[in-house]
């Protein structure tokens, strides 16, 4: 076993999971000490932005636990937690991390044993995965993912997912999970890539070709992203080197 001690953040909902963690204590059930707990009122409170931020700043894994489906103290907050987690996983993967670095589990107030088991299992899992690479590239990607999670489009989609998939759209016809996932994946791809471009340009101005090369992307795609970023006023033309335009990022408004 490596001597690597993972840094793990745990979001626990106040009503079930946090109580479950307390019960583990009352019952003196032992588990690895790596986890650092942040108490929230409801698992639905956990905005994907936060875990992504923590991963970007040096956390090795983030665990979110809530009441079992149907037991939510706030009726259905954990349903939304489940939707948000979907986005979180997608973005973690986009940023080039193992999606297993984030976990969502349900722990009731009577499941002290289960809580301990989950924490143990998760800690060992992260131990196995090793630390998140601290090279600048990974950090930038994670920040891009975090920025993407702040984007209106993704947040609006996740916000409506439960209703769209479970209750159908305003026109009464319901969207299948598959259809929704397709839309979602496409949106995640776009928002992530654009934010990545923005951050790369913030670091050093460069040409579309250079961007495409570094990102391993089709210059055509990159150009169209750059175009829409310009419309948003997030990147701008810095200068022309010969007849190659060099772009740089503007201060995010």
């Amino acid at each position, binding site marked *: 076993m490596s001597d690597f001690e993972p*840094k793990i*953040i745990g979001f626990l909902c*106040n009503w079930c999971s*946090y*109580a479950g*963690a*307390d019960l*583990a*204590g*009352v019952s*003196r*059930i*032992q*588990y690895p*000490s790596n986890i*650092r*707990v*942040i*108490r*929230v*009122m*409801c698992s*639905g*409170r*956990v*905005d994907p*932005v*936060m875990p992504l*931020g*923590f991963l970007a*700043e*040096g*956390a090795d894994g983030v665990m979110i636990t809530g009441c079992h489906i149907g037991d939510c*103290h*706030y*009726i*259905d*907050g954990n349903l*939304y937690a489940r939707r*948000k987690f979907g986005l979180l996983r997608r973005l973690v993967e986009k940023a080039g991390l193992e999606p297993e670095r984030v976990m969502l589990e349900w722990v009731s107030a009577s499941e002290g044993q289960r809580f*301990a088991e989950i924490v143990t299992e998760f800690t060992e899992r992260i131990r196995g995965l090793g630390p998140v690479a601290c090279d600048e590239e990974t950090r930038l990607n994670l920040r891009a993912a975090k920025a993407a999670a*702040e984007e*209106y*489009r993704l*947040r*609006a989609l*996740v*916000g*409506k997912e*439960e*209703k769209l998939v479970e209750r159908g759209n305003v026109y009464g016809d319901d969207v299948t999970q598959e259809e929704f996932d397709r839309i979602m994946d496409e949106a995640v791809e776009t928002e992530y890539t654009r934010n990545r471009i923005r951050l790369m340009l913030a670091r050093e101005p460069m040409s579309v070709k250079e961007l495409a090369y570094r990102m391993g992307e089709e210059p055509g795609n990159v150009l169209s992203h750059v175009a829409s970023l310009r419309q948003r006023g997030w990147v701008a033309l810095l200068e022309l080197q010969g007849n190659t335009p060099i772009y740089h990022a503007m201060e995010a408004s």
Partner: protein
Amino acid sequence: MTEEIRIGVFVCHCGVNIGGYVDVPSVVEYAERLPDVAYAEPNLYTCSSDGLQKIQEAIEKHGLNRVVVASCTPRTHEPLFQSACEEAGLNRYLFEMANIRDQCSWVHMREPEKATQKAKDLVRMAVAKARLLVPEEEPEIDVLPKGLVIGGGVSGLTAALSLMDQGFKVHLVEREGRLGGTLLKLDKLFPSNVKASEVIDPLVERVEESNDVTVHLDSKVSDVKGFIGNFDVVVDTPGGPEKLNVGTIIVATGAGYLSPEGLYGYGRVEGVVTQLELEQTFKEVGGLEGVETLVMIQCVGSRNEERAYCSRVCCTEAMKNAIRLLEKDPRRDVYILYRDLQTYGIEFSAMEFDAKKRGARLVMYDKDRPPEVTGEEKGPLVRVYSPLLDEELTIEADMVVLAAPIVPNVDNEALSRHLKVPLNSDGFFMEAHVKLRPVDFATDGVYVCGTAHSPKEVGESVYQAKAAASRAGIPMARGSLKAAAITSVVDEDRCCGCGTCIEMCPYNAITKNERGLAQVEPAVCKGCGVCGASCPEGAITMRHFTDEQLEAQGLAAIGEA
């Protein structure tokens, strides 16, 4: 300009529970060196009375404006420490806890140094959050001592009278032209066989005599605005719409009976009636003449694919009427064709046995092979297959009585929309929590009782009505209530009015204001934070659990912040 932040950290030994595994002195020492920490000390038991006193003295002596206690779990002890801070003149929301017992010393007993390290981290996280804490107020909401009861049946009347007896004014809205509801149609009530009129008449009289209860007959609730303590209700009365202003609302709209058209020859075969119609006959002529053989069929149009639920009262109702018929003339043949007898509890079980003793013939039938009723010139002919006997019985009946189930009112739909309270899949009103909040709605200030909620016998409806009156009486007796401080706030400059939060909020606490922007009603918000975490514009902040505070906690956890 912001005042200088001075945090006091109190680390509890909890006897040996923490001290035995965590090096408390070193944690205290570490805490002293954290940014903005002005003071730190260890306690044997921070929760003991002298522990609390120490906190209050320190606030005084060191001019603390934030307090962090590192001990057990906030779930049991936070309020205790918060009140201690409050007594020392510190806003209770300027307090933060680090759980270094239940989630540290107790679960890492075999690795004390790691436990100690974790305790330090947890304290650091708590301090990081404490630095960003701001005082919160718990807004005081006035509650009008006036109740609205919708429905003038036995439940509504009981609820209205109880509110009156608790000292409140009451508006009672009844859609019919007369008070009394379903009981007006019934003759005698099980298990005591009291006359329905003896139950309902005194209630009606008291309500009509009282000056505290205003009755609106032939009326309907057509609009509801506002929230607990101060609802604006519009009632359509014969004299036109009336505006009522009330503090609480009780839904007691009752239910109806299924008319079993086409089932078991009802409406087609002469002599096939419902239990309700049998009741009415009893009520009008007091008995049943010329009926020698009578067959009761249970679960008519219930406990099946289209209507899953059991109507609860029918089996005992059948027993009651069987007993009555056999009392009158023991030579009669009374059959009860049932699936599962629902004669639960002591009194109803006794009625089941009484009916059997008097010779009622109970025949179980199988859902997939129900009885058949055909019309012969002599009268209805019933064929029923008994799995127990493994044979088909043929009964020449003079009368067939169908147990038609209690069904939800048609106008539940509309009312549920006005009140923003849910209906269950059967169409009855759905309570806040099936187990522990049987007469509350998730929406504060609105309550339910009687058959509006689900099929019930009269005794049950009566005590439920009392229960609803008790629940509604609480905020009205207090006259005001403190709304939680931990609520969400909308930054109107950022809100784009997309409505995502409005759809999500399980308590309908968020509405659109005149400018089309989201607006949180703190009195209704329960502070789960789902809206904030989902707002596309990041325009919603959760009090006491702000993004900044949570992020600070997390970053503190990762590295020395």
